[in-house]
């Protein structure tokens, strides 16, 4: 992997709209309050964590492509625009080719569920307005339309670790010149059927929604640079006995770590990290389980900590729900010699 640098972060989470809200919430280290989400057929609602309404309605929601879009698109665009900052104008003017990678597990599931409910009632009268929003790449499409970005654009579907695969895809595009810059977004939306399904695998898990984004370029940012130093291979972890071995192989591809470094992990107590010498952060206990969005928040948290000089380097470790163990490493290139791995 050639050198890749983080030029911006964005987050829309149950903590609020923006990286500042995410940082404050994670620093506070207390689980956010739960909200109720009605579950048809049950008297008792599901306990979830939902993105609060924005303090001011974002202007971009008035865009014709975004008015009817589902929450996942609102979150994805919000996180992306925060990460892009003023470069959004450069993209609109055609001065910068932006590659877009959007990662998700459940996609536009609320509209998919609504549409299929209508199909079950009467397929002849199901709404043609809803169906297009059910495709996995609708959020990526809306973002590209909002930015007027005609460059390469992928939507990757899979577990939380897919977000780190997305970072590697973007690094490849920067490497071979397919894009001048890339935005990598992880996004999920609130939906009772997803929260219901999550409970089947872990009754303590709290479904959460939102989005996170990293903005990547091949040259370092002038201020507070953060480098994506490595994305490990993805190790299959589809069966319980494989998971520890997959996590061990993933860990073996990264430096041992040092005191003062940050580990942002998708779960507590993974044996692969038992000798980690630095600080440990597990946002899932604070924010809830948000799959690809959760993985993106982990990356945002590490990059933000490096920019805030809380650490010189940090790892993001994801042992996905059903697919893979994979990790990424971020460093301050001015503080540490990059330890690059492909």
């Amino acid at each position, binding site marked *: 992997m050639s050198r890749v640098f983080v030029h911006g972060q964005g987050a829309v989470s149950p903590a609020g709209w923006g990286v500042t809200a995410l940082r404050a919430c994670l620093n506070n280290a207390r689980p956010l309050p739960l909200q109720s989400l009605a*579950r*048809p*057929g*049950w008297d008792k609602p599901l306990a979830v964590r939902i993105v609060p309404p924005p303090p001011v309605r974002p202007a971009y929601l008035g865009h014709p*492509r975004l008015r009817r879009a589902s929450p996942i698109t609102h979150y994805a665009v919000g996180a992306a625009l925060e990460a892009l900052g003023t470069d959004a104008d450069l993209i609109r003017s055609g001065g910068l080719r932006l590659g*877009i990678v959007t990662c998700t*597990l459940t*996609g536009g599931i609320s509209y*998919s*569920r609504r*549409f*299929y*409910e209508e*199909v079950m009632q*009467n*397929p*002849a009268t*199901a709404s*043609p307005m809803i*169906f*297009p*929003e*059910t495709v*996995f*790449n*609708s959020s990526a*499409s*809306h973002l*590209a*339309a909002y930015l*007027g*970005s*005609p*460059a*390469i*654009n*992928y*939507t*990757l*579907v*899979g*577990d939380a670790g*897919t977000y780190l*695969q997305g970072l590697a895809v973007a690094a*490849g595009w920067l*490497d*071979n010149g*397919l894009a001048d810059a890339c935005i990598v977004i992880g996004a999920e939306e609130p939906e009772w*059927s997803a929260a*219901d*399904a999550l409970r*089947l*695998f872990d009754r303590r898990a709290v479904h959460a929604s939102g989005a996170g984004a990293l903005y990547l370029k091949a040259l370092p940012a002038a201020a507070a640079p953060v480098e994506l130093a490595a994305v490990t*291979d*993805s190790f*299959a972890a589809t069966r319980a006995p494989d998971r520890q071995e997959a996590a061990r192989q993933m860990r073996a591809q990264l430096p041992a770590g040092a005191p003062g470094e940050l580990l942002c992990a998708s779960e507590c107590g993974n044996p692969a990290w038992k000798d980690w010498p630095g600080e440990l952060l597990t946002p899932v206990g604070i924010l809830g389980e948000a799959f690809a969005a959760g993985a993106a928040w982990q990356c945002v948290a590490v990059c933000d900590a490096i920019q805030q000089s809380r650490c010189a380097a940090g790892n993001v470790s994801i042992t996905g729900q*059903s*697919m*893979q163990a*994979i990790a990424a490493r971020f460093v301050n290139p001015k503080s540490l010699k990059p330890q690059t791995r492909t």
Partner: protein
Amino acid sequence: MTGAGVITAFGAGWKINADGFRSGRTAFRPVTLFDVSRQRCKIGAEIELPADLPPNRLSRGDLRRLQRASRLLLLAGAEAWNQTGWTAAGRLPMVLGTTSGEMCLGQEYLRQALRTPFEFKRQAERVTHYLVQQQGINLANALGVEGEVITISNACASGANAIGYAWQLVGQGRADRVLTGGYDALCHLTFAGFDTLQALSPTPCRPFDAGRDGLTLGEGAAVLALEELGSAERRGAEILGEILGYGATMDTHHLTQPQPEGTAALAAMQAACASAGVTPEGIDYVNAHGTATPQNDTAETAAIQAWAGARAATLPVSSTKAGIGHLLGAAGAVEAVVCLMALRGQWLPPETSLQTPDPACRFQIVRQPMAAKIQTALSNSFGFGGSNATLIFRRWL
């Protein structure tokens, strides 16, 4: 490309599909997988799944849980795997494209969750096998390979983008070999979705026909084994063909409709040619996206003609969706295999159902089976959301 596997409504395997595409057969019939009695369109290119799966490493329990999309992918994947002659040693990345994964299980999950909300039997299993990554994992387990699974879901360009990305992985030296392709099974949600948009024709689709009135959905899968040339030559593998170029662009005009003049499609074709180092004069056949919707074919016609210039007058073009329908996430992958078949067999796949060619088409629509001397083929895939992908293939001698 050292291995290829395919399953469509023509049947399972290279030969039956090559025969079907070469002769211009059509494979449309009434849909039986779900109730279409209350919908405008009642036909599709539904596959009669073979009773047996090829030999594989899945347990009896795993096999019992395999649903339609996984079975399609396994049938195509095993054919490609056996043809390439790879062994399970080492890591093997897999890059796949799909639009809906195992959506039939998502539908079952929701039906049970709504109708019997306190009945959880088999719900966890449905969720596990509904998730899009699981079909790739099933194929990896069936073949006994380890390595990452990347699933691209760019609507109808998913399969082409998967192959394009896999080609980049090999080209950049990030992998010596990659298994790649696309798959999609017919499901009620998608069928009803296209029907509500009035994008489905009640009669078999007729791409580039003046009277075209919509697409016909199909299902299928295709898998290619991509390998770095030196690796293939060292082990004496039979090389089926070469991927020469790939271009991907976004059409930001509308969520479901292409820009009428096909500007983004044109950009994808130009990008693919630039990466391949060829001009339109160097392309011998175009496998069009050709869905048979009025909007797609109009935009694609404009794009092909703008791209080809004077070459358009003699350029053979056809859409093989005329025979097997629109395979959505599998379309680009199956059409890549069709190009490979045509290049190896030296023939052009015809659209025998074409009645009156759209007068806007100034290129040569292939209407009858014919032999042809072709060295290169270009394949277009354009999807909902504006994802456009073009692949270019070369005959290997």
